[in-house]
Every structure is written in C-alpha cells, then in structure tokens.
C-alpha cells in the first residue's frame, strides 16, 4: 500500500508545491510589513512608514498569483479530498492576508501622522496588543505549515485576550481625550491603530479556522461565540 508517495501526476504535485510556497511567501511578507508598521510608530520613523505604504503592491500581486494558480488547479486537476480542502483554504486565507497587508498600510499612515505631531508616548498596552496580534498571525501561519489543527485551535483561544486588550486601550485613550483636549488628535490616531491591530487578530482567527477545516475536514466557522465588539 503506497504511503504518501505523492500524486501520480507530477505536474499536479508541482502545482501544489508552488501553491504552498507562494502562500508562505505572502504570509511572510505580510508579517514583515506589520512589524515594520508597528516599529514606525514606536520609533516615529516616517521613512519606514512610507516604505510599508509603497510596498503593498507586492502583496496584492501575490494574491492575484495565488488566485490564478488555484483556479488553474481547480479547472485542470479536479482536486478531491485533502487537495480540494487545500485549494479552498488557500482561496480564503489569501483574502485575509491581503486585508492584513492593507491594515499594515493603514497603520503606517497613522504612524506618519503621529511622527509629524508632537510626541505622545503610546500606552504600553498598545505595544502588547501589537505583539499579540503579530503573534496570532504568526502562529496561524505556522499551523498552516505544520498542518496542525491543534496549533490552529490555540490561535482561536488566544483571541479573547486580544479583544480584552483592545477594549482596555480604547477606554484608556477615551479617558485621556476627555482629560485633555489637546490629545484628541493623537489619541484618535492611536485608537485607529489599536482597531487595526484588533482586525489583524480577527484575520488571524479566520486563517486558523480555515486551517482546522483543511486538516480535519470539518467547518468550524461561525460555530462558536466571539468576544469583543469594539
């Protein structure tokens, strides 16, 4: 009985390999942009922010390539079972990754606004939120690489903390704005950034849910309550 000898159709095997490579490349790029955008805030680095904004096209390009590849595989290879689940997963997470790329750009834009305004130390929780959001995304992508539904499930359980953190930051900043109206502009900026980071966390969740489907074959989306509305 043959054990994972790969598909009889070598070209198909090659296509699937390419697909995985591209997805990982896209994930890695998105992670990098997010890290850069967050650094642009803490280091008030306008140049870095602009770098993130101008390189979004790269991520969009990858999305188009992956979509095209998936369509081709669907049309030509009639994938079934695990292969089919891989393709449908790829199609979905590519959307989430591309949105995260857009969110990185948004964060970078806010970073530039902050850099051009007088310095205001960001709440420490914001750094924690940023780290957590990036971690969530990173873990979701690791779960994809490992094909592990357990790792993906961990991402799902980590979202509660992320949402709680966001709520805390929101209230802090609200308090700050009510105290001193001079902070309103900058605080609003920081609120935006926190919102964006919370959205990154949501996207990481989506990716994790799709990984679980890909591995187990059961669709767990919308089947449990999410916390935090913001």
């Amino acid at each position, binding site marked *: *009985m*043959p054990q*994972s*000898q*790969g*598909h*009889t*159709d070598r070209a*198909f095997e090659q296509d699937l390999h390419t697909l995985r490579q591209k997805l990982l490349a896209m994930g890695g790029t998105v992670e990098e942009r997010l890290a850069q955008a967050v650094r642009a805030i803490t280091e008030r680095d306008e140049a870095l922010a602009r770098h993130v904004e101008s390189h979004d096209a790269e991520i969009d390009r990858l999305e188009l390539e992956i979509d095209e590849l998936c369509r081709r595989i669907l049309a030509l290879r*009639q*994938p*079934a*079972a*695990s*292969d*089919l*689940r891989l393709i449908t997963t790829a199609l979905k997470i590519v959307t989430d990754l591309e949105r995260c790329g857009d969110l990185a750009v948004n964060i970078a834009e806010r970073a530039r606004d902050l850099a051009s305004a007088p310095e205001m130390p960001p709440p420490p929780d914001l750094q924690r939120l940023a780290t957590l959001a990036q971690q969530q995304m990173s873990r979701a992508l690791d779960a994809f690489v490992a094909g592990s539904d357990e790792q993906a499930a961990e991402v799902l359980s980590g979202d509660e903390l992320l949402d709680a953190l966001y709520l805390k930051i929101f209230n802090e900043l609200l308090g700050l704005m009510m105290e001193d109206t001079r902070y309103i502009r900058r605080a609003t900026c920081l609120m935006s950034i926190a919102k964006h980071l919370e959205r990154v966390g949501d996207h990481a969740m989506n990716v994790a849910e799709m990984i679980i489907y890909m591995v*187990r*074959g*059961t669709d767990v989306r919308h089947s449990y309550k999410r916390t935090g509305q913001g």
Partner: protein
Amino acid sequence: MTSAFTEGPRPKLQAKGLTVRYGRKTAVDDVSLDLGDRQVTALIGPSGCGKSTFLRALNRMNDLIPGATHEGAVLLDGQNIFERELDPVDLRRRVGMVFQRSNPFPKSIYENVAYGLRVGGVRDRAVLDRQVERSLTAAALWDEVRDRLDESALALSGGQQQRLCIARALAVEPEVLLMDEPASALDPIATAKIEELVHELKTRYTIVIVTHNMQQAARVSDVTAFFYMGELVEIGPTERMFTAPRERRTEDYVTGKFG
C-alpha cells in the same frame, strides 16, 4: 474494517460477509455493506479491486463463471439470494443489469425491449406494446425511436444502444438496477445523457453503479463505496468521500496518489 453504512433509507440489498473466489484467487474478501432503497450507490476502486465481481454477485451472474465460488450472504428485502429455494432466473428479473459495452440483440428495437417480457411468458400484444413504450420512455429513447421500432437495434448510435439496453432491462420492471461502467464506451454527451437518466431512475429503482471514473461517481451517486484488493475500504455519503474521507487509502485513491 468495513463500515456497514446504515443511515438513511432502509437497505434494499445487503451483503453480509460476502466472499467470492475464482479458483484459488479471492476477488471479493468478506464484504458487508448495505445498498439503500432508491439510492444510487457507486462502487469505485482501481482495476482488479473486486467491484465488478461484487456487482455480478448481486444478481448471481457469477454462477455462470466456471470455478467461481462464494461464501456469505446477500439479502434482497431480507431474503438470501443464494438460498436453494430462490431461483436465479427469478432473481434476475428483480435485479437487472446493464453492461459496459452495449449488447443489443440482432433483432428489432421492439423485440429487444420486449425480450425480457417474452421469456417471462408475456404474450399479450397490448401488454407488450405498453411496456415497450413505457420502458423506452423511461430510458429517454421513446421519442427518438417511436417511428422505427421494427428497425434493427444495431442501426442505433452507441449512446442510443446503451439506452436501449437500459430500456430492455427496465421492461421487466426490476427493483434493482446494476450498472457496470455503463458509460465507459461513450462520448461525453452520451455519457451526460446516461447520467441524467440515472438521476431520473433513482426515484423508482435502487441503482448500483460500478465506475472507474471518479468524477462520474461524484456526479451521479448518493453513496460511494471504495474497494481495494477485494476489500471494502470505506463507504459513506458521496460528498464526504470526496471532500473528507476517513480512511487513508480512500484519500490516496481519490486524490490520485495511486490507481
């Protein structure tokens, strides 16, 4: 090892520990499965996996192969078809068969369809006429041949001949229809017509279809059973079998890693 699939409608045919041997070679090894009433069950698997032998056991056509022996039972509505009291000739009127290559008799279209009825003792011309029309209609062939029923069946195209064979099988009003790769010799359009026919027929008949074309199994069946080397590896709702099969061997076959 074998999952007897018993959800859904009550089973029309049940195999219980069926083993079929040709001489010393085991073609079907201890297979138990249920075939749901008025469902389409597809049997898939690589060449030589025993699916055709299993199909032939259901109407005892294996009896005609010298050296074929069997163990176990097959129940039709609860009665074992291998019992001495049950005449295989009667069984074959209840369980009809359509073959891989269409094999109409070198007779007229009318006589082909009426054949099963005539050997069953029906002589009344009115009854024969009515049954011929009904069967040809059920096989989606009536409109094409109504004006030339007395012409030779061999003048029809390949796809039409296969539908004629289906009509011929339906004329005796079986309860179960066994189809052994019925469209493998046909072009895509003729194949599509046969598949559509299967869709219509399943409201009235229990259908078991052997196919080596997985996409066809996916299109046409409600339940799919995967055979490998004489064993029943897995059986389940077709959608699940093709999106998330439980057995590793099924997964490998369905994704094209072997076979």
